[in-house]
């Protein structure tokens, strides 16, 4: 009836052996849970072993992403965010980029900004553009590497143009898919302070700090 031979009893493990194995498995599970799983999933690390293994960082990043995604959902994205921006804007003046120094032997950059991010910190700068407009950019990173997300949003639309990980710099151009704010979100996932310098020129109304 089966594709198997009936084993004789002496081929089976003894009860004592099975119970001992169960106890060992349970103890191993508790140890792994406390030193590995909880740090990696929730950044809960009572022993400090998770930190040493680099798993607490995983838990910290996951928790942070979950909070941000939750904040996104609470916001319902764009519409309210621009409303909030205008409300917040009453209290917080937006920083604008300084006029860029003329480039040597080339077309001058129109605007530039430089900022320093501590490990774990983020920043966001945006160009206000209309659909079809194109702007050129150059990004220089010093002191480490940075993650960035080049995206746009406005009028209920959102788009990701490019994502970069561990970037030491980039250059190129961005063409707006729709009317709105198009630019970068940066985060320093490196272990030291990172300085980012961004220069832009082309078709946009303004280049501003959206952090």
């Amino acid at each position: 009836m089966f594709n198997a031979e009936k084993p004789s009893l002496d081929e089976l493990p003894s009860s004592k052996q099975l119970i001992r194995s169960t106890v060992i498995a349970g103890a191993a599970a508790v140890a792994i849970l406390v030193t590995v799983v909880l740090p990696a999933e929730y950044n809960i690390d009572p022993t400090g072993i998770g930190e040493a293994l680099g798993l607490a960082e995983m838990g910290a990043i996951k928790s942070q992403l979950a909070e941000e995604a939750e904040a996104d959902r609470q916001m319902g994205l764009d519409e309210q965010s621009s409303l909030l921006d205008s409300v917040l804007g009453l209290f917080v003046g937006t920083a604008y980029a300084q006029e860029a120094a003329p480039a040597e032997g080339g077309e001058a950059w129109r605007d530039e900004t430089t900022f320093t991010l501590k490990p774990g910190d983020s920043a966001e700068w945006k160009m206000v553009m209309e659909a079809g407009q194109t702007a050129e950019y150059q990004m220089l990173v010093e002191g480490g590497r940075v993650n960035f997300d080049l995206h746009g949003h406005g009028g209920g639309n959102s788009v990701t143009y490019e994502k970069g990980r561990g970037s030491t710099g980039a250059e190129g151009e961005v063409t707006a898919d729709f009317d709105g704010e198009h630019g970068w979100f940066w985060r320093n996932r490196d272990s030291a302070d990172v300085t980012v310098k961004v220069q832009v020129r082309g078709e946009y109304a303004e280049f501003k700090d959206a952090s």
Partner: protein
Amino acid sequence: MSVAQAAAHNVTEGDAGYIQEIWGVNIIPFTYLGAKHMVTGYDHILFLLGVVFFLYKMRDVGIYVSLFALGHSTTMLLGVWFGWGVNAYIVDAIIGLSVVYKALDNLGAYQRWFGFQPNTKAATLIFGFFHGTGLATKILDYDIASDGLLANLLAFNVGVELGQLMALAVILIVMGFWRKSPNFFAQAYTANVVMMTLGFILMGYQLTGLFVAA
């Protein structure tokens, strides 16, 4: 971080989100993710359960599990390295089929229906290839940075094997208790029918996804 910023970019959450934030060689985190993937991958666990269901000798368990590991390691590494763009729904449906196949094999259906026994070792290896392809497809979705890819991939693979051993340990302990009961052979039939049902459900779930997503 201002309110506006939170709503500024499309956040990827969970393991994929974490992987998309890091670069370079991260051996232990990737080993952990590989193990997690296997331990929480019910389709792989079901097949593994089917494979060892009637294996009593540790030597046989070792041989079959090694064949399965060889199969899925090969296609997982090759699949990610060469970026095989295989349709995840089809691969996962085949993985569901592997569970059905193994349950029928355990029930002796092939001997009864066709009068012969397909090579069980070959079947374990071949379905191992499909399970690895499924793993590769999911890893490709993670979008691992090219910086440190090979080392991270090997670490992930080591993690998958560790996870498999952990799952196997639990399966063998449970089976050990169960086999001692006088009703084991009576219940084994039902258990394999239930396993087959789960395999069919997995197939239906994935094939539906194929048409819904298409």
